[in-house]
C-alpha cells in the first residue's frame, strides 16, 4: 500500500507567498515605527512652539495673532508665527529672532529639526496660500 509522503518541502508558490507575507508584516512594522517617531516629533514640536509662544507673549510683550505648523517630513517642522505689525517693524523684534535661534540650537539634531518664520499681521492675509503651502495645523492658544 502506498502512503503519501509527509510534505516537508516548499513549492515555489509557497516561497513567494511567504516572502510577500513577510514583506507585508515588515511594512506594517516599519509603518508603525515611523508613525511612533512622527507622533513623538509632533508632540515635541508642539511643546517647543508652545514655549516659544508664551515667551514671545509674556516676556517680549508681543501680540501673537496666530501660530501655524507645517509638517515637512517625519523629522522637519516649520512654525509660522504671525505677530502685531508694529512689533514686527520695531528694532526690538531682533530679540525674538535671537531667541528663536537659541531654541533651534537647543533642539535641532539629525532626527529632529524645527524652524520659525515670523510675519506681520494684516487683515488681508491670504489664508488659502498659507494653507496650500502646508501650514494646515493652527495652534489653539491656551
Amino acid at each position, binding site marked *: 500500500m502506498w502512503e503519501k509522503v509527509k510534505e516537508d518541502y516548499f513549492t515555489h508558490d509557497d516561497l513567494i507567498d511567504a516572502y510577500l507575507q513577510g514583506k507585508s508584516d515588515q511594512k506594517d512594522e516599519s509603518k508603525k515605527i515611523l508613525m511612533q517617531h512622527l507622533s513623538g516629533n509632533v508632540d515635541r514640536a508642539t511643546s517647543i512652539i508652545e514655549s516659544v509662544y508664551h515667551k514671545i507673549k509674556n516676556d517680549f510683550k508681543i501680540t501673537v495673532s496666530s501660530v501655524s505648523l507645517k509638517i515637512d517630513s517625519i523629522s*522637519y517642522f516649520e512654525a509660522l508665527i504671525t505677530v502685531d505689525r508694529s512689533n514686527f517693524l520695531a528694532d526690538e523684534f531682533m530679540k525674538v529672532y535671537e531667541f528663536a535661534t537659541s531654541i533651534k540650537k537647543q533642539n535641532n539634531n539629525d532626527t529632529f*529639526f524645527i524652524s520659525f518664520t515670523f*510675519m*506681520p499681521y494684516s487683515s488681508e492675509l491670504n489664508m488659502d496660500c498659507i494653507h496650500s503651502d502646508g501650514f494646515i495645523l493652527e495652534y489653539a492658544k491656551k
Partner: protein
Amino acid sequence: MRKNDASLAHAEHNEKALKYIDKTPDFLDWVITMCFYSSLHYARYKLFPLPDATSDGKSKFQHKTFDEYSRFYRDKPISKHMMLHNLLEEHHPEISSEYGQLMDLCKTARYHNYKYTREESNLAKKLQVKIKTYCSPAVSVPPAV
C-alpha cells in the same frame, strides 16, 4: 583660498537693480525680494570658502562655494535657504537675525498678496545695508607714500 568674487558681483548687481526699482512705490514687494537676494549673495561671499571636516574629524577640507556645500550636504532634509541661514547662525551670528527677518519678509510676501508698504520695504533696506556692511570686503587703504 580666494573669496568667490562671483557672489560679490551678484550681490552688487542685485543691489543696483534694487536702487533702480525703488524709485517708485509700485514694486515694493520686488524691493524686498531684491534686498533679500542681494543679502543672500553677500552672505555667500562672506561665508565661503568654508572649512569643514569629515564626521570622524580625520580629513579636513574646504567648500569653495555654497553650491559645493549644499551638494555635499544634500541629504539634509532642509531647503537651501534654510541651510544658508543655519550657516550664518553658526558662523556669523552678528547678522543672522537680520538675515532671518529679511528672508521671512521675502518668503511671506505672497501671504500678503504682495502688498507691502514703505515701512516694510524700508525695514528690508535697513537690514540689507547691515548685512552688506558686515559682509563686504574691507576697503584697503593704499599705503602712505
